[in-house]
Each structure stands twice: as structure tokens, then as C-alpha cells.
């Protein structure tokens, strides 16, 4: 392994010759990913016996999907369905490496050009061909459609050229080391141009014929279920799809969802609350898969007004927090304490940087340094959900020990977003679902940005800005990793956020479900899943 890594180092990085080869070779060449404390993502144990075709997999979700149009989608739940209907140009493997998807291979002759060879013989569910024109059409729609939510993600793409029917060239506005990772999700998903042209506005509700994936959209009965059926002409003849159908159902109450799983009404539950994990693991009729996530749960500190415009007071707060206790007591160890925004699942995670350790003496010294030796008081804005409230109460008690008084203001999600966007808070909860490339967990939060952005803290630090820009320009993974380590250390000092936990997202299954492989982006891909 080490040699693979080194050989990549020397070559990769002169990105000009950075060449990824096609399907067969790609997994060997894929970047070696180092794994975090909680180890590799698990998969469901493979039983003896060959996979069996047939059956309907019933999946319980907490909420209904919002739209079937990946270019207009802004909600996480949509992606769960998309990853079975649509396919991105490139896909993630279990270690967040990038593998060929609809693109067989790709190369970067220079930092601002990405040439992709597309997979021939792939058809959309409506029977039309997937080809370079289709890719160009999709990128243009993402860039120009007024309601497109993908604009930012494809902002670095200046133009798309069709070199031949199965080769496209993306001309970039600026170097973008995170682009390939971005193309593993909605921004890389290809929709049938014919479907968009003929019934584009209807696509939000009806994705018939729109994708190329192992399952095709069958129906969506609003508020009731979404039904997918097997794509029998799927291009990839290895493995599945085995299931006849997948049926997604929203069940908003977590307890009821778990009971539905226990009673066999559903086979898969998208997320198990930490409070239920122990009980579910003890239940022999259920199987739990711990999926380490890309998420980063933290609190943003407002740098634009007192008390947290004073660095020493931010540090006093950080030293007064006991992350171990929060992770153990509130999250019941369904996650690990965070040392920064980058999760242990990422290749960029630096395990040599410890999370900030509780040190009451230091906290008191910092309070004195910040001119508030006896403490100060402030308000935390946080969602009115049980686990958030519990966490807030634990933090309140911890801070009380050094004389910091924290008031808790409970809000709903829409209020939280509005308070954050308007910088109308002192400390505010932020739970980011995470992105496969560390860029997605850092740039938009810490880069100086006037106006509305996810940089709610208002941090503006030339050193951080320069580092962030550099992480986008450099393509060598080891070099980027060094930059992100440096960034993490500065963040621990500057504290635009206090980082709390990288949660695990456990999913629970009926023992009948076989062949599920978990990828840390939390999306459930059912191509190779079958029912015993």
C-alpha cells in the first residue's frame, strides 16, 4: 500500500500528467485513504448462497423527498433516492476514493482542464443515448436554469466542449481540486435531455425515464410513497440490481419508525437515534450498520460582536468544554470528539491533532486575558430537538464551572438559518452533513465572504484565506492534506467555531437485507442489495 501511495505522490502531483485510467485500473490507482479512529465503514455480512432476484425493499425515511430533479434539489433526503435512479459521472468508494461512474476515465492535462471519457452503451431509462452532448446539456442547465441549486457547485466550470461523442472537455475558470468529489453527487448526475426538454417542469414530481441508474422511477404518491423498479437493461452486468422494487415511505416519528422495522413493515431505516442504538444493537432481529459520516457538528461563534469578538473569550469557552463528556453522555459514543471540521473518514483528517482538551485553569487564565476574570454571559441559539437541547444543557453546566453563564434560546430550523445568515446570534448550533472533499467542510465556512454565506461567524483572517485558496489550487493529495492540517491548527486557535463531534450515522436493517455496502456519504445505494 505504501508504495502505491508514494508512487502516486511523485507522479500525481505534477497534475499536468495526472492521469486516471479506466475502470479496471482505477481502483488500484485510486488514492489511498487513511482511515479514522472508528475504522472502515462496515458492510452487511455476506451470507452463504448466491444473491436472489426479486422482492420489494421497503425503506423508511424521516421526511418526504422534496423534488425528483437533481438540479433543483436542496434537501438531503432527495439524494437518497437519486443515488438509485441517477448516476454521477464519478462515484465514491467505501474509502471516499473516486471511481469511474458514467465517466470511464479522466485526465487533467493542466490545472484548468478536465477531459472525461464517457462510458459508451449507456442508455437513459427513456431509451435515449447517454453521450457527450447529454453531459454538455446537463452542465449548461445546472449553470443557467434560474432555479438551479447547483450553480455554486459547478461555478468553476467555464465551458463544456464536446470532443467526440464520448469525450468531453471541461474548461475551468480556476483550478478546482475539489471538483471531482463534487461530481460524485447531484452536480455530476446526468438527466435525460429528452425528458428535460419534453417535460422539464414535471420532472420535479415525475422522474420517469430520466436517469441511467440500476432502478427507474415508477411512481410518487405524494405523502405516501416513492416507488422505483428494477432497470432490466442496466449497463453494468456485474452484480445487481436484484430487487424488483424499492419503496420509500416517510415515517416522521423515530420511535414508530423503529417499531415498523421491528414488526417487519419496513426493511431499512435511514437513521437510528443515538438513544436507540444500544437497544437496536441488542435486538437479534435487527442488523445495525455503523456508517461513519462526513458530518461536522459544531457551534459558530460570532466574531462581529461581543463577547466572542474577543479571541481570548472564545478560547476560554473552548477550554471550558469537555468534548469527551458530551460525546459520551449526550451522543452515547455514537461519534467521536472533533478536532476540527474534517471528519476521520476523510483522507485529509490529521489524527495527530488532538481535539481541544478541557483545562479549567487555562480557561480561567483566558477569561482574565479577555478582561472578564469572573466570567461573562451569552446566549446560545440551537434547534429545539431533544439531542440538541440535551447537549446545550451539558454545555451550560460545563461553562458554569468557570463562571460563564449561557442562556439557551431554542428555535426551529428556519429561524436558525435566518439568525445565522443575519449574524443575529452570539453562539449558534451548526450541523453540517459534510462533503466528500474537505473543501466542502471548510472553504465556505471560513473564507472571508461579505454578504450571506455559511461563514456565519464572520471570520476574516488573511492567513486562513490564503490557505483555503491554496487547497483548491494544489492537486496533490498529500500536499493538500498538509494544508488542511495547518488550517485545522489555526482554526483551533482562532475558533470561528467550537467543534464538538463527528457523528456516526447508524442505519438499521432487517436481517433479510443482504449485500449492503456503506459509503461514508450516508447515501444508500441498493444496486447490489437483495432480500433473503
Amino acid at each position, binding site marked *: 500500500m505504501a508504495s502505491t501511495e508514494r508512487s502516486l505522490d511523485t507522479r500525481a502531483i505534477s497534475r499536468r500528467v495526472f492521469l486516471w485510467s479506466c475502470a479496471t485500473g482505477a481502483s488500484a490507482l485510486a488514492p489511498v485513504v487513511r482511515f479514522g479512529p472508528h475504522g472502515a465503514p462496515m458492510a452487511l455480512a455476506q451470507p452463504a448462497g448466491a444473491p436472489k432476484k426479486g422482492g420489494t425493499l421497503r425503506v423508511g425515511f424521516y421526511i418526504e423527498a422534496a423534488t425528483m430533479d437533481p438540479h433543483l434539489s436542496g434537501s438531503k433526503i432527495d439524494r437518497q433516492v437519486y443515488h438509485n435512479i441517477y448516476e454521477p459521472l464519478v462515484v465514491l468508494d467505501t474509502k471516499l476514493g473516486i471511481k469511474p461512474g458514467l465517466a470511464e476515465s479522466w485526465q487533467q492535462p493542466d490545472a484548468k482542464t478536465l477531459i472525461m471519457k464517457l462510458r459508451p452503451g449507456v442508455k437513459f431509462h427513456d431509451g435515449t443515448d447517454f453521450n457527450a452532448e447529454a453531459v454538455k446539456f446537463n452542465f449548461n442547465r445546472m449553470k443557467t436554469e434560474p432555479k438551479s441549486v447547483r450553480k455554486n457547485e459547478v461555478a468553476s466550470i467555464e465551458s463544456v466542449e464536446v470532443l467526440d461523442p464520448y469525450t468531453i472537455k471541461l474548461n475551468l475558470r480556476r483550478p478546482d481540486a475539489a471538483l471531482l468529489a463534487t461530481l460524485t453527487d447531484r452536480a455530476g448526475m446526468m438527466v435525460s435531455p429528452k425528458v428535460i426538454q419534453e417535460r422539464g417542469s414535471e420532472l420535479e414530481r415525475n422522474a420517469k425515464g430520466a436517469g441511467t441508474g440500476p432502478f427507474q422511477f415508477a411512481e410518487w404518491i405524494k405523502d405516501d410513497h416513492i416507488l422505483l423498479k428494477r432497470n432490466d437493461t442496466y449497463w453494468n452486468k456485474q452484480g445487481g440490481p436484484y430487487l424488483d422494487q424499492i419503496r420509500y415511505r416517510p415515517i416522521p*416519528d423515530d420511535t*414508530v419508525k423503529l417499531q*415498523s422495522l*421491528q414488526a417487519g413493515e419496513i426493511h431499512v431505516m435511514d437513521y437510528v437515534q443515538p438513544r436507540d442504538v444500544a437497544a437496536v444493537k441488542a435486538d437479534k432481529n435487527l442488523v445495525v450498520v455503523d456508517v461513519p459520516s462526513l458530518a461536522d457538528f459544531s457551534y459558530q461563534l460570532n466574531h462581529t460582536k461581543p463577547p466572542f469578538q474577543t479571541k481570548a473569550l472564545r478560547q476560554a469557552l473552548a477550554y471550558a468544554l469537555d468534548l469527551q463528556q458530551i460525546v459520551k453522555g449526550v451522543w452515547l459514543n455514537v461519534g467521536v470528539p472533533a478536532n476540527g471540521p474534517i471528519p476521520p473518514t476523510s483522507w485529509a483528517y490529521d489524527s495527530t491533532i488532538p481535539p481541544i482538551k478541557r483545562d479549567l485553569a487555562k480557561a480561567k487564565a483566558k477569561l482574565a486575558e479577555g478582561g472578564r476574570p469572573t466570567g461573562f454571559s451569552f446566549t446560545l441559539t440551537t434547534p429545539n430537538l431533544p439531542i440538541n437541547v440535551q447537549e446545550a444543557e451539558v454545555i451550560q453546566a460545563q461553562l458554569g464551572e468557570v463562571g460563564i453563564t449561557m442562556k439557551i434560546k431554542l428555535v426551529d430550523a*428556519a429561524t436558525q438559518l435566518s439568525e445565522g445568515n443575519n449574524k443575529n446570534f452570539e453562539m449558534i448550533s451548526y450541523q453540517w452533513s459534510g462533503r466528500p472533499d474537505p473543501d466542502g467542510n471548510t472553504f465556505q465556512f471560513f473564507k472571508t465572504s461579505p454578504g450571506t454565506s455559511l461563514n456565519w461567524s464572520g471570520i476574516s483572517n488573511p492567513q486562513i484565506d490564503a490557505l483555503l485558496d491554496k487547497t483548491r489550487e494544489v492537486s496533490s493529495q498529500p500536499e493538500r492534506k498538509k494544508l488542511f492540517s495547518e488550517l485545522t491548527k489555526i482554526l483551533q486557535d482562532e475558533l470561528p467555531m467550537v467543534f464538538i463531534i463527528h457523528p456516526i450515522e447508524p442505519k438499521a436493517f432487517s436481517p433479510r437485507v443482504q449485500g449492503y455496502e456503506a459509503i461514508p456519504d450516508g447515501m444508500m445505494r441498493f444496486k447490489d442489495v437483495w432480500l433473503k
Partner: protein
Amino acid sequence: MGRLVLRRLVATVPVLLLVTAGVFALIHLTPGDPIDAMMAESVDATVKATLRRQLGLDQPIHVQYAVWMGRLLQGDLGRSIRNQEPVIENVRRRIRPSLQLAAFAMVISLVVAFPVGILSAARRNTPVDRINTTFALFGIYMPNFLIALLLIFLFGVTLRWLPISGYVDPFEEPLDGLRSLLLPAITLGLALAAVITRTLRSSMLEALAEDYVRTARAKGLSEGRVIRGHVLKNALIPVVTVLGLQLGTLIGGAVITEYVFALPGVGRLVVDAVFARDYPLVQGVILLIAVGFILSNLLVDLLYGWIDPRIRYR
């Protein structure tokens, strides 16, 4: 009668105006914004600004209200911001489960409440009455969600007799439909039965003390005939009032029950719309719920005249 209905309907206009203005002000004054709520993870300010302009959300609030009112007068409730479908279509889809659940719950509550209430009144201060009163208190004070979870645990998980959650339309698949509505209907019906039992018992006790009851007994009528022929009918007015008020609550306010059983009803529609700050949807649905309340109260008033001919409307 016709004039009464007309007069009552005209009188609802100012009520509805107040409701719309109140809801409009409240939902717009709540922090948060539909576009942010919809695109939580996107930061593209220009996309958001374009959408806000398209939806007229950049206008001052009184202008937005005037525009909304103008459309309403033409019979247009607008479209949901979140799913782009007309408000009326959203309601049409959600009203069926809500009405069916309300009707089913009401039937269950009546079937339980009448025998229990009558028995309690007739056997006042006996052990039977005390057991019934305890049952009524239990129904009133047990939170909905707890009854729901207990029912699910018993009939869904342990015995596996009934489905745990979800909705099947009984008009399409009668058996599965009734099965899917049974647990939620019991949940709502028990609480309602408790209220009706209490009301029925006390109004019957009042009627039992009337002179005409003494007269009927003196005539030698059996106790059963006294209760059926004289007491019950006179005790019905308060019960009908309670039923009328509860019907509106059952249709628009069964949020918790709908949430727990994953039923796509009107109550959840409103709550989800509030969380999404889906202004047109919130306004439209609450307006329709208000209309529903007013109509069910009107129905109750008309029923009064039918039950008790002494009540005459002019």
C-alpha cells in the same frame, strides 16, 4: 331557515378577514424565510434573490397581503412555495385521510361514550359510575402520543394484528384502509369519548332532576323508557355542542396523531408548512380550516333546532 344560514354566512366574513390578517402577520413576523428553509445548504445569493423576486417576497408585507387577498377574491389560493402545486391541490390530497380519520374517531367515540355516559348517569355514585368516571379522566388526561405509542406497541409490534403506520384509502381497499385507520381512530376516539361521556353524564343528571322526569316515572314508565324517551333527548344539546367543536379540532388539529401514525392529514400539512415557512400554504390551509370550523358550528346550530323544537331561529 334559509335566511338564518345566509345571515350566519355573512357574519363569518369579518371573522375570516381577521383570521387571514392574523395568520398572515404571524407567519411573516416569525423569523426565517421559505427560500432559506428550502435551500438550507446552498449559499448562492443570486439564486435566492431571483426566487424571492419571482415569488414577490421582496415586497413589503402589506403589499404581499393585498396581492394575496386580490387573488383570493378571484378564488385563487396560490401555490405552495415548496412543492409548486396549488394550495387547493395540497389540501385536496390531505383532506381525505383527515375526514376519514375524524369520522371514524367520532363513530368510535359515540359507540363508547353513549353506553358509558348513560350508565354512569343512571347508576350515579355506584361503583359502575366510579369506574366510568375513572375511564373518562384517563381518556382526558392521557396524552395522545402516549396512547398512540402504547397501542402501536400492543397491536402492532407485540400482537402484529394491525399495521403500525401509513395510510390506505378505505374507499379503494376497504379492509386494509380500515385497518390502517383503526389505531389512530382509537387514539383520537378515546380522548373524545371521555369528553362526551363527561358531558353526557352531567347533562343527563340535570335532566333526571327535572319535573317531567318525575311525572314520567309517576305515570309508571319503566326507567329505560324514561331515559330513552325523556332524558336522553333533552340531554343531547350540550353533547352536540361538544361534538361540533371537536369535529373541527379532529380535522385540523390531529397533528400528533397524524405525526405518530405517519398519516398524511391536514394537521401535519399545516405544521410542515409552518416549519418550511411556506407562506401561501400556511395561509390557505388555515383559511380553509377556519371555514371548516365555522361550517361545523353552523351545522350544530341547525341541529339544535331539530333536536329541540323549542329553539326557534328567526
